[in-house]
């Protein structure tokens, strides 16, 4: 990493800190009640104080998110592969998928609760249903953009559809796939918390719901911070994996950086 790069990073970090300082100062100067907008310092102390209580809920939310995400990725890849390979599947599934993804997921949660009761299952399902769509779209797009000439070269060699999919189609979708994973993991998070908020007695969503009905606004915000922190962490992890696996697609950035 070059010096210029480090300086850039330092600036970004400083600006982020500045944002919280400004928030703190704003609250202090306007004498804002912590029932409306607590100060960041209050939020952090609440967060640290309540961490032992929050911890199982964090784990719960993380578990449902990841489970929903993993299932969503599996479903998304399978569906995306089918749609990307078969024209018929594309024509039938695409309108259905677009329709389904247009439904606000908060409207679906009650149905999941009706079917499976409240708790973990609807949270996982909501996470799944909200996160698989970007994966389907990206896998399908990646497969559909395989060069016809290369396909001909391989078919003339006697390659099966699976050979082509495995050697050319799927590797080509990897940059699309990892880009969609970053988005999908955030979506899964939204889905899980949404469902916990509506119908669960565990998880960060539920903690925030309870805290807000007790007017414990700092705790509500602490919950938000936890969610934001987890979201950033997951996003960062998948960005890192993306960089490792699909470096070939972003080589231009590397060239500029080196």
């Amino acid at each position, binding site marked *: 990493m070059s010096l210029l790069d480090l300086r850039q990073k330092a600036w970004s970090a400083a600006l982020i800190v500045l944002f919280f300082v400004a928030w703190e100062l704003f609250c202090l100067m306007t004498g804002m009640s912590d029932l409306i907008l607590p100060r960041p310092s209050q939020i952090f102390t609440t967060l640290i104080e309540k961490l032992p209580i929050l911890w199982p809920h964090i784990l719960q939310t993380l578990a449902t998110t990841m489970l929903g995400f993993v299932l969503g990725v599996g479903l998304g890849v399978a569906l995306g592969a089918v749609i990307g390979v078969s024209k018929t599947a594309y024509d039938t599934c695409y309108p259905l998928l677009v329709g389904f993804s247009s439904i606000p997921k908060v409207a679906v949660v009650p149905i999941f609760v009706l079917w499976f009761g409240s708790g973990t299952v609807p949270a996982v399902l909501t996470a799944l249903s909200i996160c698989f769509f970007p994966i389907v779209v990206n896998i399908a797009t990646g497969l559909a953009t395989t*060069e016809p*000439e*290369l396909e*001909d*070269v*391989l*078919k*003339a*060699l*006697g*390659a099966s559809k699976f*050979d082509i999919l495995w*050697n*050319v189609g799927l*590797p*080509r979708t*990897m940059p699309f796939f990892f880009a969609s994973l970053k988005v999908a993991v955030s979506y899964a998070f939204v889905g899980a918390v949404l469902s916990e908020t509506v119908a669960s007695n565990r998880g960060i969503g539920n903690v925030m719901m309870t805290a807000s009905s007790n007017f414990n606004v700092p705790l509500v915000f602490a919950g938000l911070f936890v969610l934001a922190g987890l979201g950033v962490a997951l996003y960062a992890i998948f960005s890192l994996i993306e960089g490792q696996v*699909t470096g*070939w*697609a972003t*080589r231009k950035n590397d060239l500029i950086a080196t």
Partner: protein
Amino acid sequence: MMRMQPVSEFKGMPVSENPAPVAIELSDTSVTFGRGAKAVPALSKTTLRIADGEFVALVGPSGCGKSTILRLVSGLVQPTTGVVIVGGREVAARALRVGMAFQNPTMLPWMTIERNIMLPLKIVEPYRSQFRKLRRTEFRDKANALLEQVGLKGFGGKFPWQLSGGMLQRANLCRALIHEPRLLLLDEPFGALDQFTREELWSILQQLWMTHKATVLLVTHDLREAGFLASRICVMSARPGRIVDDSRVTFARPRTVAMTFEPDFVALNQKLRAFIVDARSASQAGAA
């Protein structure tokens, strides 16, 4: 539709003068895309015999079905009538293992050139089942030997984006040849290259052909290219294509670029050109 002047049909043409076995045989083969009112005839009944080891160039106006013949031979297109026999058996469902190269080199960007070239070995038996075992040793040497032949020694570890268009096209030829196909099908492989690179690649391709002894079927728009490379040139009429001329090219090998400016060569070019101009004007008259 107005028919052209009586065209020599090649059904009865004696091929016996050439003792080599027949590599490709099209008999009364025609191709029509689509059905009913939307049917587009792409290739009229065509009969063509290509002997083993021949280098045949197909030239003709654009859209005349040259590529269709290539796709018939490779099994990518099924004939509407007639049969296509390649290597002694009818082209049915694929599995011909022919080498193919197009104008677009289509190297996979996530693999090094070496691994790109080895791609056919991952698909074609008997290499396929040995691929895991030999990809780091024998197959790799094979790829690099080919790269050396086309003047890309030491470029095996590079990625496609690090190579120029001409270099990628050389690699493309290597990929088409790595599994030692009996038959090499080239669809305007040098169409996107500049004149000088193209001429350089002609010599390389000629060299490859002389060492590998495969049967080559080359589709091209470039009459000089056809004259330089081919041992036989078939001229096709406008869509739906038919073969209107079939000439042997007897210039000694290895041929050189300087040779393409000699009177004999220029005369051949002009003869071919006249056929194509005829075919074009006939199709325009037919369309009017």
